[in-house]
């Protein structure tokens, strides 16, 4: 188990270096530079432009800038935002809970709906239920997030006026963040109606962000389940006289979950990518929105640091998924070493 863990961590190192290079290079490929964007409409003289670039160190050769950046990372320093002058890491941490909260809700939504839907479709395969579940999943999967988000806002916020349009909580409420998770903080604040307000702000973004993972999980569960249901051990379970609920929910599901867990893990990347759009649509103050804002400002340190942190999170989550995979699949646990 330890050896397995070490090997997996070893594999992460080259990936990490690659991500560092990519995140550094990506933002510099975009036209424009931070100085120009800070100057904005007023513009500035070429001499002043030169001087400011020099002041920030952007006049030096790229490889030099990169090496500086690279070695700073290993000292735990991601640099400072050009805009706020705050350390990138604390900027990230301040917004991270909002994204975590949204992503967690989205994945819980996707798993809680996707696994039962996929199981049901598999058990009733070929029926109208199966076709409608899988048809809906296909639509959900192909829905552009932006369009889907706007559609839901128009319908539920605009026409029905059930949910708020943007933000994490109504402006009526204010309390200092304790955990950074609005659902928990609103409860802790003890203010009447705060929690309900937080929940109602979460619903639409959760649905929008969770739709693609939901569709993917439902489809994967269905196909894994179909495969497992024709296995010999399922027949053995039936031959014991077990009720269908137990045969499907225990014997088949446990095996079908093995590929589904991997799929769920892979959705973390999808979620973080989706968070960028979702947070922008709903003005959700998380790292996705922060990334978009930073890109528009050409805030080099924020973008490269933010991308690096997001990549690190995806890698860590994938590692955790691999470990869980071993827990749920005894064959890996004992043979993988």
């Amino acid at each position, binding site marked *: 188990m330890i050896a397995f863990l070490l090997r997996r961590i070893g594999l992460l190192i080259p990936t990490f270096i690659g991500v560092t290079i990519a995140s550094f290079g990506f933002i510099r490929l975009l036209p424009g530079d931070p100085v120009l964007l800070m100057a904005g409409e007023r513009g500035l003289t070429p001499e002043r432009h030169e001087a400011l670039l020099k002041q920030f160190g952007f006049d030096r050769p790229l490889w030099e800038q990169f090496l500086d950046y690279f070695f700073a990372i290993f000292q735990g320093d991601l640099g400072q935002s050009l805009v706020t002058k705050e350390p990138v890491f604390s900027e990230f941490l301040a917004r991270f809970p909002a994204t975590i909260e949204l992503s967690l809700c989205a994945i819980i939504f996707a798993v809680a709906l996707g696994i039962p839907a996929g199981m049901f479709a598999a058990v009733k395969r070929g029926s109208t239920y199966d076709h409608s579940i899988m048809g809906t999943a296909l639509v959900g999967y192909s829905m552009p997030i932006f369009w889907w988000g706007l559609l839901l806002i128009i319908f539920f916020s605009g026409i029905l006026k059930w949910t708020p349009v943007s933000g994490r909580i109504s402006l009526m409420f204010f309390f200092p963040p304790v955990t950074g998770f609005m659902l928990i903080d609103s409860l802790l604040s003890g203010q009447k109606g705060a929690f309900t307000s937080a929940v109602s702000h979460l619903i639409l973004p959760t649905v929008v962000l969770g739709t693609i993972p939901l569709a993917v999980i439902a489809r994967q569960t269905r196909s894994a389940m179909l495969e497992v249901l024709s*296995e*010999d*051990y399922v*027949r*053995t*379970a*039936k*031959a*014991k*006289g*077990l*009720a269908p609920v137990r045969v499907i929910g225990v*014997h088949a599901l*446990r*095996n079908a979950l093995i590929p589904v867990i991997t799929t769920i893990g892979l959705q973390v990347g999808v979620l973080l990518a989706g968070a960028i759009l979702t947070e922008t649509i709903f003005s959700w103050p998380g790292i996705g929105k922060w990334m978009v804002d930073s890109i528009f400002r050409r805030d080099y340190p924020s973008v490269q640091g933010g991308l690096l942190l997001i990549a690190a999170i995806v890698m860590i989550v994938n590692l955790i998924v691999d470990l869980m995979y071993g827990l*749920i*699949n*005894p*064959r890996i646990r*004992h*043979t993988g070493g």
Partner: protein
Amino acid sequence: MALLEIENLTVEFATAGGQFRAVDRLSLQADAGDVLAIVGESGSGKSVAMLAMMGLLPWTATVTADRLQFDGKDLLTMSAAGRRKIIGKDISMIFQEPMSSLNPCFTIGFQLGEAMKIHLGLSREARRSRAIELLDLVGIPAPEKRIGSFPHQLSGGMNQRVMIAIAIACNPKLLVADEPTTALDVTIQAQILELLLKLQQETDMALILITHDMGVVAETAQRVSVQYAGQKVEEQPVASLFDDPRHPYTAALLAALPERAHSRQLPSIPGVVPGQFDRPDGCLFAPRCTFATNRCRTEPPERAKGDTTSALCFYPLRNGVPQGHPGKEAAE
């Protein structure tokens, strides 16, 4: 009345090419203490018939029978819930592939305990001690340790012993063993069979043994039912079957044994079992039968009502000679 009574069991599968009859008017009986062997080539519907009896076939199968009774209860009209009270408890089954018949995600102990929990309502500790007892009974060393093992940590032979332990956990009255040794190597095969027979004798349960192995039949069974293309072609006590086979198919099977007692595998006869699309009009064995006449090719042989064991043949053999056969010329 026998423990298990099957009369004219028919199973049809809905396939892309239409209905396929995998079991055709099969009748069987088994009583406590019986060891009945079912033999026949691959595809002759041995497994399907037993799975139909237990209600384990997929939804594409249509099962009909004039009678399908176990212990006086009608399995056919019984509700699914009612049937689940019987299978796994009074009737249990061992499958051909021990490695894939156990769930890879659960421990041996868990899989052993399940049936005891639902059928006998045993507590956790009682299940554990009974599981250890059972593993010991089927000859698994260090059962206290094995209880926490997963199937992939055991050999095929050990897994088959576990399957047997699961099958006998609730003291069944009828045990169906579907080619329990085919996937195992020869030395293990003998041990597993010996174990099955020992358990059968100790508990006086009925044992239906499906096999390809004529050697196994000779050594273990009391009665033998020979199946061909979904039909039972004849049934006899084991000694007289080997002495004087009545159906040309049985005779061909036995004749193809190079040295009867030595061959372990079912011998091959020229030709193949008819499938869905080449089912003959007359006797199903006619295309491969050396005695087949025009009548055999056009008219299916039937048994008299109430007769379920005689050879399904117009000219049953007596000491190798077809009775009432019109002779070589007419056979052409």
